[in-house]
């Protein structure tokens, strides 16, 4: 909200400069967002005397003027017709800045210049160039008695101000006006608050002949005050009033509307002026309807208003949307002579809802929806009425109509010294606390050394509990003044959780395996999501801003593919990425919320060149086995490798530890590659971190195995089998038949070709045998090999290769 520094000074003696005031406001919770200088102080613009004018040698329209500035005489090129020797004129000297906005948003600063070959040391100004009026017909000619060299800001009363734009938090409706901001400053600075004097009219409920006011929906309108003003002369507002509004960025309209805006910014009460003679039946009814109503507001917009919208009606129907905007028909116009001034309290929730459904936030709705003072309506109406009377010469009815079906009474709160100090960490006495919040207009009802009971004015609807009062003490005391203890480093016996340590270890391991971490979107489009399964089993958002954020990712694969394509499109030749993040699905096997399974996954993915083109080696692309070897390394680092098994399922290799499925390794399908515009092969493994966590709990206690004393015996053999038989199956069989001296199996050659026949392949195994008690020899190993080969021949029709 914009606050005028000059206006604040009407209410308090401010010992602070505008920027100091802004800082102080920030420190008491009214955060300054921007300081805006309004109007120009015209520094460097002074009174000069034109001594002589001559024709510019190169331009018909320009004159060369010799101007006396007091301490020097300079030449200025001037284009005005009315410039003449002997005149006293305003001169913008070199270096001064004028309130003329340039295209880049900055203001014109004068420099020494050459105009058509002639030097010009400044500018003789017209009225509009100084922001003093609209006249641009010629230069301004000043009173000839003025002394040369006098600053122009001493000649004219310039309309300058500093506007402080502050952020109003939702709990502080009292600070949506100058009086409220001044009150906070007066409390913080300990200076007196001077409120505007308002002569209150006697209240009545009805003035029989003029107007009747009726509230049909008292919950939505607990109070409605009307004031009759007769014989107004609608015209432009006086300068002081226009300047106040202009400085806040408001457009002056006419003297009546301007006063209602002025009082709103002064006291915080939104007001509305109706053209009395346009009110049918001389009747105001405040009510809502249980059906949709179409209504044209004064911004010439026909609006469909939902049932429950609160209206101000006359005998014929709605004339204003309560608290939001008036109607076109009853608006104050140039021909208006009599006015009904409305000053009401509307229920904040009702106004918020209407403003939201109409997407129409006005200065009035902004205040109503935050909750204005429910006891200021009569004061604000009288204040505005007397200003209107003063400005327009109107006459006022003596009385004010005040319909007040629901009263708001001030709350009483007790502040305990013990709780105050316990929460703030201070050692304040009750008297010191009262001193700190003095100025906020809390009334002390009773006190002793341990507690004080206060009556809270109704303009502070945010203060309903003791803790709210403690915040008042804290913010005005200044949190920066509270002394922080010095406990030093806090020692905790707890370490990070197992989960946290696992996540850190996985990330650290992936980095050690030369993967780069990526962070990708967890919200993807429905179209993208369907690539990874049935949309019915996924978790969606009901109200995404765009179609790109409809579905929570069921897998980390989308993010990897997108990041990979993004980089290949930017000339990258290789990616090696990992991501650790949550994935979501609908499942009976839910995690936190019924029906929804949220799990943490780890994805490792590679694509592109393993070796780029280089003198030392040929370019080689990544293969699935590069990723498989990284995965083995990861399982080794985690201590899982001993219990890992894998099976082929749907063209993926599914990994388990004991009975826990950990995840799967696969090549990205051609279909997916096409969707993501990937031309290179890509390989991914996606593991469930939750499953890894469970698996880690099943690792048996590690026991040291002594280093073998005897050498191992190696035996190589190759078999020819059909292509459809997997190496994994062969190895499982070998392991089951070879007995406990078998230490390891390695595949050292895979071969296919005409020599072994179509549809067949040769796989060469190297088996290592070890006996902890003796050196093995061929005699002991041969029977084992024979047993293994026989089984392979029988089970897979394998042929031993010679």
């Amino acid at each position, binding site marked *: 909200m914009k606050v005028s520094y000059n206006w604040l000074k009407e209410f308090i003696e401010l010992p602070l400069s505008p920027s100091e005031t802004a800082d102080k406001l920030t420190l008491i919770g009214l955060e300054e967002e921007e300081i805006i200088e309004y109007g120009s102080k015209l520094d460097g613009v002074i009174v000069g005397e034109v001594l002589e004018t001559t024709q510019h040698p190169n331009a018909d329209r320009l004159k060369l003027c010799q101007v006396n500035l007091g301490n020097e005489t300079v030449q200025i090129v001037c284009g005005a017709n009315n410039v003449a020797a002997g005149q006293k004129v305003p001169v913008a000297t070199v270096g001064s800045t004028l309130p003329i906005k340039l295209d880049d948003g900055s203001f014109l600063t004068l420099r020494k210049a050459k105009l058509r070959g002639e030097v010009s040391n400044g500018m003789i100004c017209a009225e509009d160039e100084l922001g003093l009026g609209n006249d641009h017909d010629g230069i301004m000619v000043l009173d000839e008695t003025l002394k040369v060299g006098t600053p122009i800001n001493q000649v004219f009363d310039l309309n300058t101000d500093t506007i402080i734009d502050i952020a109003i938090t939702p709990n502080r409706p009292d600070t949506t006006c100058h009086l409220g901001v001044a009150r906070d400053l007066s409390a913080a600075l300990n200076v007196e608050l001077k409120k505007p004097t308002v002569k209150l009219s006697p209240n009545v409920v009805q003035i029989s002949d003029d107007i009747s006011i009726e509230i049909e929906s008292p919950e939505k309108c607990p109070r409605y005050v009307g004031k009759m003003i007769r014989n107004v002369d609608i015209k432009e507002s006086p300068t002081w009033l226009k300047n106040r509004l202009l400085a806040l960025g408001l457009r002056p309209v006419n003297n009546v509307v301007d006063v209602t805006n002025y009082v709103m910014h002064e006291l915080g009460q939104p007001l509305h002026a109706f053209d009395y003679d346009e009110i049918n039946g001389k009747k105001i009814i405040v009510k809502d309807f249980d059906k949709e109503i179409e209504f044209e507001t004064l911004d010439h917009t026909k609006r469909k208003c939902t049932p429950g919208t609160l209206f101000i009606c006359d005998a014929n129907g709605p004339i204003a949307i309560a608290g939001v905007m008036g109607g076109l028909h009853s608006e104050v116009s140039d021909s208006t002579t009599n006015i009904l001034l409305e000053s009401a309290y509307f229920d904040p929730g009702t106004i918020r809802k209407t403003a939201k459904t109409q997407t129409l936030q006005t200065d009035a709705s902004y205040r109503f929806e935050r909750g204005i003072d429910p006891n200021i309506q009569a004061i604000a109406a009288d204040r505005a009425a007397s200003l209107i009377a003063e400005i327009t010469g109107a006459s006022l009815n003596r009385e004010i109509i005040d319909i007040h079906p629901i009263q708001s009474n001030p709350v009483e709160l007790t502040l305990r010294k013990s709780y105050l100090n316990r*929460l703030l*960490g201070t050692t304040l006495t009750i008297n010191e606390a009262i001193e700190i919040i003095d100025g906020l207009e809390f009334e002390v009802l009773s006190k002793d050394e341990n507690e004080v009971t206060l009556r809270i004015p109704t303009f502070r609807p945010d203060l309903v509990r003791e803790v709210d009062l403690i915040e008042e003490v804290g913010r005005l005391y200044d949190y920066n003044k509270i002394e922080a203890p010095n406990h030093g480093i806090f020692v905790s016996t707890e370490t990070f959780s197992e989960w946290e340590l696992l996540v850190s270890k996985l990330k650290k391991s992936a980095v050690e395996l030369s993967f780069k971490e990526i962070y990708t979107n967890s919200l993807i489009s429905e179209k993208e999501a369907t690539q990874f399964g049935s949309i019915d089993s996924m978790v969606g958002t009901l109200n*995404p801003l765009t179609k790109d954020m409809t579905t929570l990712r069921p897998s980390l694969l989308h993010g990897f593919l997108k990041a990979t394509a993004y980089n290949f499109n930017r000339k990258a030749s290789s990616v090696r990425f990992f991501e650790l993040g949550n994935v979501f699905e609908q499942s009976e096997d839910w995690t936190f919320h019924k029906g929804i399974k949220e799990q943490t996954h780890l994805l490792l993915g590679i694509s592109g060149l393993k070796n780029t083109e280089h003198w030392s080696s040929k370019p080689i692309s990544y293969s699935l086995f590069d990723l498989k070897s990284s995965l083995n390394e990861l399982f080794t680092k985690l201590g899982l490798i001993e219990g890992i098994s894998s099976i082929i399922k749907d063209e993926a290799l599914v990994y388990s530890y004991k009975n826990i499925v950990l995840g799967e390794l696969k090549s990205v399908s051609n279909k997916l590659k096409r969707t993501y515009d990937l031309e290179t092969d890509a390989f991914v493994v996606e593991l469930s971190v939750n499953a890894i966590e469970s698996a880690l709990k099943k690792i048996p206690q590690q026991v040291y195995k002594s280093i073998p004393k005897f050498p191992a015996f190696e035996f190589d053999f190759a078999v020819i089998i059909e292509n459809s038989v997997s190496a994994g199956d062969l190895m499982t069989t070998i392991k089951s038949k070879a007995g406990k001296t078998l230490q390891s199996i390695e595949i050292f050659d895979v071969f296919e070709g005409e020599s072994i026949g179509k549809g067949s392949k040769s796989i060469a195994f190297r088996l290592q045998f070890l006996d902890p008690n003796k050196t093995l020899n061929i005699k002991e190993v041969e029977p084992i090999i024979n047993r293994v080969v026989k089984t392979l021949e029988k089970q897979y029709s394998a042929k031993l290769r010679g």
Partner: protein
Amino acid sequence: MLDDIIALKKEIATQSITNQKELEDFRLEFLSRNGSVQSMFKNLGSVPKEERASIGKEMNEVKKLAQKRFDEAKINLESSVQSSTSALDDLTLTAPNTPIGSLHPLTKTLEEMKQIFYRLGFTIADGPEVEDDFHNFTALNFPPNHPARDEQDTFFVRKSDDPDISDLVLRTHTSPVQIRLMENTKPPIRSIMPGRVYRNEAVSPKSYFLFHQVEALYIDENVSVADLKETLITFVKLMYGSDVKYRLRPGFFPFTEPSLEMDIWWGSEKDGKWLEILGSGMVDPNVFISTGVDPEKYTGFAWGMGVERIAILKYGIDDIRTFYENDIRFLEQFN
């Protein structure tokens, strides 16, 4: 005779040997069987006996010099010969690139924060990204009509008219983890909650529909604003250096009362400005009540900050979207 020897010595000392041919020439000229050094020794016989010892000594010096020059030149030439014999022996050739693993800058920033909190005695707590209305809003003292509950601000995952089935949202902050902790743990509680959060916002350089937060919670019997200040100050000093300039000012959050915000001075003394880095406050009594903690017995502080914002400040990144594009040229700056 002596003059001849001196002349030969000079000749040997000054002979140029810069390549293999010159080396061979030198050998033939001076050191071979018919070379001038050997020839010189042949003349020794004609030297008068009484001079023979001294002349012989001179001749030996000449021989030694010739051998020394030859040996030195040979070693010098060999080392230079080696580097030009094979193209692949060039040490200045480029090495093949090996891939380098790295953590994302957000993880790096988060790790740094975690380490600081660990030193301050905080543990780490975790919770789901899909949350129910109670944990995300109600328990945190958000009134039923609070703007954050609007569809414009929050992603809804499930909306239900059945009071037994709670509305689900994508959590808008990590504060629901605080609620879960309070529900399940008896104070004292001293923990941080890092995690991913969502806001239904349009994407721009300054805002993204998801980001990461770290919140901290400390609940015990006599926790005060002063204690909050102590941890905040320690944190910013460890994060931004002990000379960091900071200030506290009042703020407003539904779940804390009083609420405070912390600014740090960013930039030079003259051209810098105050930058908001975190929000904090004393846990609102209503939050305690909704989680079954006695507000008369316990007090506590909570604070939260955005990881992206801290990383943006730390590394001078100008567009928040950069974090989620995963451009390698961006990632490799954080090795």
